[in-house]
């Protein structure tokens, strides 16, 4: 931790701003009501005291001490206990507003000095400004009093600014010029009208900002989602099978099972639509656990990507990510590939010509029967729908889908069709046939998952760091 930085205490944020706020800086935290400003500020103070040993002061002009302490217990912030240590002070100035700003500022300065505070929150600066006589006083207060004093004593300060709904301005408009950093919290629409919390870093002195907007959640405290590319995993164990709930196939991910009411329906058709800028790892993080769970439960899996497939690469990913052996994959995994492909031979590669749809479908059905006879269990079929359209054309695809859907339902298997971006005519057709329709999109560097059928909330996708192998951690966005 660099000494010239004050760790924010906000999960995920320090990595995005070079380790924390510049020490002794003035940070403006603005947002509409209900966007999480108080939780952000409280966490900054609470974790600052508890984990970084930096005394802090919370100045409240909006909420009484009792109300604040009670609401923060929801996040596990026991401020009353923190106060007993002497390293935290809550200045309840709700009733002081009428007594004048000079008195308030004096109380703050006294407390900062007395405690040798390194962290200060003024919640809210907007309320303080309301008590000023002239608009120009806001600038003077900020420029000549707060910012200078704070810099001199190196007390990193958050000024909370309330932005009314519909307003484009941040407070008195002075704050954003004087502040060293500006963070704006808001709710934006993503995933066909679903709301998500957004954090925008519009200014941070001496800091390289790689992107201006991030998503965040308040579940378990204020946490900023990092782009998936920044997350790493290290496999520490082999995939452990999840038992299916009645009438369902587990998705292999407890989080996804929970969202889907236990998993995918037996005999069900799932359409998985992938948006733009989604990497292979992004969608594989959601779908591969289902594949892994079938294999771990000694069930067969058939993957029908046809063109552009690389069976060897797919198998090596299953080994690397989930710890399967060659024997397990050789016995339970089958991958379709064009016979004009790379010519690589392996027990799980099934070569088809890609010319006659009925001929290839016959191979498909035979492969399923072979896997079923071997395991005596239902089969998972992974079908790349857009690749099939390229190979067989739209008419061929429709015919193939019709046959595959009927067979899956009849035999109690599970079919997951995957559609990439730019083929809406295909996805519309497939959506009409599906029981479950999921979409994976990406905004602000974060993959987002939601269900169109059934309609679900929006979930941020991360790697579950508590799992010994890559599983998705799905966090509801509102």
């Amino acid at each position, binding site marked *: 931790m660099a000494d010239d930085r004050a760790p924010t205490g906000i999960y995920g944020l320090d990595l995005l701003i070079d380790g924390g706020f510049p020490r002794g800086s003035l940070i403006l935290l603005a947002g509409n009501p209900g966007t999480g400003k108080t939780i952000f500020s409280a966490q900054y103070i609470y974790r600052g005291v508890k984990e970084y040993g930096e005394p802090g002061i919370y100045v409240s002009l909006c909420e009484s001490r009792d109300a604040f302490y009670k609401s923060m217990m929801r996040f596990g912030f026991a401020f009353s206990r923190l106060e007993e240590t002497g390293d935290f002070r809550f200045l309840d100035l709700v009733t002081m507003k009428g007594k004048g*700003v*000079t008195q308030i*500022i*004096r109380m703050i*300065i*006294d407390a900062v*000095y007395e405690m040798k505070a390194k962290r200060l929150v003024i919640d809210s600066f907007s309320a303080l400004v309301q008590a000023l006589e002239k608009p120009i*006083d806001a600038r*003077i*207060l900020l420029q*000549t*009093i707060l910012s*200078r*004093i704070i810099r*001199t*004593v190196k007390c990193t300060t958050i000024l909370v600014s309330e932005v009314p709904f519909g307003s484009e301005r941040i407070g008195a408009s002075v704050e954003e010029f004087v502040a060293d950093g500006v963070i704006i919290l808001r709710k934006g629409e993503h995933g066909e009208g679903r709301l998500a919390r957004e954090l925008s870093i519009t200014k941070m002195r001496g800091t390289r900002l790689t992107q201006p907007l991030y998503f965040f959640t308040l579940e378990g405290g204020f946490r900023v989602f990092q782009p998936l590319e920044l997350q790493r995993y290290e496999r520490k164990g082999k995939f452990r099978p999840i038992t299916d709930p009645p009438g369902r196939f587990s998705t292999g991910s407890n989080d996804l099972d929970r969202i889907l009411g236990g998993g995918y329906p037996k005999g069900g058709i799932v359409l998985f639509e992938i948006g733009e800028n989604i990497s292979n790892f992004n969608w594989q993080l959601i779908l591969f656990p289902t594949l892994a769970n079938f294999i771990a439960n000694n069930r067969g899996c058939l993957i029908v990507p046809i063109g552009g497939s690389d069976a060897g690469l797919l198998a090596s990913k299953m080994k690397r990510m989930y710890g399967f052996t060659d024997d397990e994959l050789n016995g339970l995994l089958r991958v379709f590939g064009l016979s004009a492909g790379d010519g690589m031979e392996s027990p799980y590669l099934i070569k088809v010509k890609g010319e006659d749809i009925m001929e290839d479908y016959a191979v498909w059905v035979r492969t399923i029967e072979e896997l079923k006879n071997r395991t005596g269990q239902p089969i998972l079929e992974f079908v790349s729908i857009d690749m099939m359209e390229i190979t067989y054309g739209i008419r061929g695809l429709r015919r193939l889908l019709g046959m595959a859907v009927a067979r899956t339902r009849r035999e109690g298997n599970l079919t997951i069709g995957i559609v990439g971006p730019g083929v809406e005519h295909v996805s519309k057709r497939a959506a009409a046939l599906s029981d479950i329709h999921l979409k994976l999109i990406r905004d602000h560097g974060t993959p987002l998952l939601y269900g169109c059928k059934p309609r679900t909330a929006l979930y941020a996708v991360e790697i579950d760091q508590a799992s010994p192998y890559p599983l998705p951690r799905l966090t509801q966005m509102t």
Partner: protein
Amino acid sequence: MSVRGMDEKEKSESGRHTPSEEEKRRFINLLVESFVECVRFGDSILRFLELKYGLKKNDILSRPEYFITGLKDLMGGGAAVIERLMIENLYRKVGLECEWGEKTFREYIEEAFEEYIRREENKR
């Protein structure tokens, strides 16, 4: 020249009236008023100077250089403007016309203090 409030012996030897503690206290109040009236949130600035540099209000009279150093540390270049406004305000309060010359902050304050004491004597 030195400030009367600082050196009682010197003042007695000059043959003039030695300012009483009450007179000094009233003049210090005038000094503080002069400062607070010319700068917004002056009270807060004085409190900050007290906490950071240990500067009490009566130090503006007895140790004016320290006061100015603290003010410069806090306000940067703006301190010179505040210093000037404060002197003008103080001179008005003691009934002097302020003529800007080569004097230091300490010398202006001493001049104002002497004038204040002279007027207090005349009142008697």
